[in-house]
């Protein structure tokens, strides 16, 4: 049987990818960001997950306005890095795990969560920046990835509660998969940021630190926070944080926090990162 051994959360700011790709990661501005992931790179080199179930949002890359799925699970063999307007990121193609992904889709849909199944899509910075932060710049990503794309572009995104409960269904699905695989669940996006209008640049450190506390110790209550609170307090794009609740729902009620990092700024955004041991 497969086992979820750990959860990881991280912001997925596009400028972090650009900094790496353009070799700016040693500049003091970016060094301050990457420093928070030094521990994580060593940790994951030891952990050697077989599969990462990676929750992220597509930023109008794979999904235009033609189709807007609330939850979409990737069941493809592989996913190419998307061209977001400046050419694709120079990172390896992402290898999927179609068998496990299809098993999860079947299990979760039969558990009343109506996922959209995607057999072909490109993946944008939302998925590739977390891989870069955790694995650096290898020739091949060292694990398979199952993408779960969540709509946070057009209002309304799914509620925090729905995300948390979906996480629980995903856990049941992963843990009923026959092969003995070491699986991690990652929740990405956030933390507080607003990319639009006169209020752009909003950062709420108090909100973020409280969120980092509660996602570890009080996720059930945290999952009841309404959308409007995210938008008001954490900025219009801070709503991405609901995706962290999918990760958290897939873990034990009690987890051990083994790493926590918070830094402002990366471009317009507050960077938050957690590693939670689920053993």
């Amino acid at each position: 049987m497969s086992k979820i051994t750990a959860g990881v959360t991280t912001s997925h700011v596009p400028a972090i990818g650009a900094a790496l790709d353009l070799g700016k990661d040693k500049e003091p501005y970016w060094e301050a960001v990457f420093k928070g992931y030094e521990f994580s790179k060593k940790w994951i080199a030891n952990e050697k997950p077989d599969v990462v179930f990676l929750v992220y949002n597509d930023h109008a890359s794979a999904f235009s306005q033609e189709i807007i799925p609330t939850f979409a699970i990737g069941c493809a063999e592989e996913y190419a890095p998307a061209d977001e307007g400046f050419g694709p990121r120079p990172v390896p193609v992402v290898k999927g795990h179609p068998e496990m992904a299809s098993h999860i889709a079947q299990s979760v849909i039969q558990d009343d969560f109506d996922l959209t199944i995607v057999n072909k899509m490109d993946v944008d910075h939302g998925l590739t920046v977390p891989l870069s932060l955790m694995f650096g710049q290898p020739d091949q990503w060292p694990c398979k990835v199952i993408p779960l794309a969540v709509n946070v572009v057009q209002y309304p995104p799914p509620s925090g509660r729905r995300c948390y409960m979906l996480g629980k269904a995903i856990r049941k699905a992963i843990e009923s998969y026959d092969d003995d695989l070491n699986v991690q669940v990652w929740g990405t996006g956030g933390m507080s940021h607003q990319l639009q209008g006169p209020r752009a640049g909003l950062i709420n450190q108090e909100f973020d630190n409280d969120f980092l506390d509660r996602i570890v110790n009080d996720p059930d209550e945290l999952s009841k926070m309404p959308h409007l609170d995210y938008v008001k307090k954490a900025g219009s794009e801070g709503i991405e944080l609901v995706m962290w609740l999918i990760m958290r729902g897939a873990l034990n009620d009690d987890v051990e926090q083994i790493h926590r990092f918070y830094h402002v700024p990366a471009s317009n955004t507050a960077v938050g990162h957690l590693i939670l041991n689920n053993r």
Partner: protein
Amino acid sequence: MSLDKPYDNIPGTVIFDADMSRKGFHLNQFCMSLMKADNRARFKADEKAYLNEWKMTDEQKQAVLDRDYNRMMALGGNIYFLAKIFSTDGLSFQYAAATMTGMSQEEYRDMMLAGGRKPDNESTGDQTDE
């Protein structure tokens, strides 16, 4: 019955809902087209001609030509779509965000380095500059 919009009074913030999505459909689909290098080249060669291939309003086209991101959003554009325009221009999210605030690039960068725009009131999220 019209859509319930509890988010209408958040200052300096446009929520991209179904109404905005309808309004901005062609503008946003034009943005998506810039994910192909050939289209970017054609757009750069003659922006007006390229925009005329899309069923956008004249106001939307003008806002694109002016790179007026607040205007584009008021006309139904969504930031993640509009990102394809400033990426085509070789500019960053931070550059584009700064243009929306009325601050200079330097002022905006310094504000972010100092911890970002502070939410001075929890209920409204009203901003202060420093």
